[in-house]
């Protein structure tokens, strides 16, 4: 296949030193800012870390045994699992939205813009806005409820409702994920639909036998990302409730933050971060094994 004068590159060639030099800054910063903190965190978790006199006293697995006995740890894991479960209720919303948006012909740009705008807004803006909606005294939701003749609710102040309240704004801004599904939908070849039409398939048959199988791999990937993201939720509980009421929205990441930066128990905080990290690794490996990610398999 090769003509004379063309260069060949293969993995077994001698390294091209110029290329290595160009790659070096990227690799070095990546190691420095990604892997060094990771390794450092694992090391810190074996110490009763003291900021004034690092690294403090070596305690071995002391932090870990403490974390497994701490009643607060089991509570925050339960809270996090509940929030993950609740946010998984909404995973089909972006899929449906993408399928609907793909069908639009007139006003295509208009509709897509409308649905993508909330994804462009900074997360904090959405959170502050919704916090205002949820306010029990002058929030919009309670005013609407009163207008309909219903009792006002406590929303974020109600330990039973608070977790759901954290998740609902996420359901209502499916734009970003829908954009990814939209790209997947656009990758479906037209010939498949045309062949289906010749075979006499209707709308629902095409949807079920062509469209959905083609985006299932993408759904698997998004599910993995969603679960990882949901286990790491931090800013929503931090801004909405700060962990309250009655610790009902205190999630793992928030507890890590509080232990490490409010009480300066860096060792204990990083221990829980390391536990979360290994938990997510195991969970993701299991998920990758369960979901096929190859569309033609």
């Amino acid at each position, binding site marked *: 296949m090769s003509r004379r004068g063309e260069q060949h590159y293969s993995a077994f060639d001698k390294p091209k030193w110029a290329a290595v030099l160009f790659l070096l800054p990227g690799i070095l910063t990546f190691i420095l800012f990604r892997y060094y903190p990771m390794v450092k965190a694992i090391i810190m978790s074996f110490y009763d870390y003291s900021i004034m006199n690092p690294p403090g006293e070596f305690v071995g697995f002391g932090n870990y045994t403490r974390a497994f006995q701490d009643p607060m740890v089991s509570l925050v894991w339960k809270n996090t699992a509940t929030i993950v479960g609740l946010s998984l209720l909404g995973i089909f919303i972006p899929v449906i*939205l993408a*399928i*609907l*948006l*793909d*069908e*639009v*012909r007139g006003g295509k740009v208009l*509709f897509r813009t*409308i*649905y993508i*705008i*909330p994804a462009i*807004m900074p997360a904090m*803006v*959405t959170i502050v*806005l*919704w916090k*205002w*909606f949820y306010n029990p005294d*002058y929030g*919009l939701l309670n*005013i609407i409820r009163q*207008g309909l003749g219903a009792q006002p609710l406590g929303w974020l102040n109600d330990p039973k409702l608070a977790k759901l309240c954290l998740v609902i704004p996420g359901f*209502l*801004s499916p*734009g970003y994920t829908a954009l990814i599904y939209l790209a997947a*939908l*656009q990758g*479906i*070849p*037209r010939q498949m*639909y*045309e062949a289906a*039409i010749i075979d006499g398939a*209707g*709308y629902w048959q*095409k*949807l079920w036998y*062509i*469209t959905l199988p083609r985006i299932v791999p993408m759904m698997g990937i998004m599910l993995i990302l969603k679960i990882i993201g949901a286990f790491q939720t931090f800013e929503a509980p931090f801004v909405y409730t700060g962990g309250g009421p009655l610790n009902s929205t205190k999630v793992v990441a928030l507890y890590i933050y509080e232990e490490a930066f409010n009480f300066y128990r860096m060792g204990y905080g990083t221990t829980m971060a390391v536990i979360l990290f290994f938990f997510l690794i195991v969970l993701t490996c299991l998920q990758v094994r369960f979901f096929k990610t190859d569309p033609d398999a």
Partner: protein
Amino acid sequence: MPIIQPSEIDRRNKRIVITIYIILVLGAVTQIFPFLWMLSSSLKDNIEIYKLPPKLIPPRPTMVELQFDVPEGATQKEIEKDAVLASFYLLKKEQM
């Protein structure tokens, strides 16, 4: 690719397309409304923002808020003078 190909827009498919448009328009309301609410809140002052029932279009949109720091027992004339000065400074600042 859209599921409904251009070649097969018959009566039955048209119904589906219309349903899709209706759902999307209803959904668009949920997307735009928070945005509009944010915009309207940004045009309310600190008192109006707590007013019940809230209005989407504030009756008196506020973009600039002035606070007067007048001593206790100030006469109406002094307050007015301060107000004029404050707005004058603002005007000068805009001109710079």
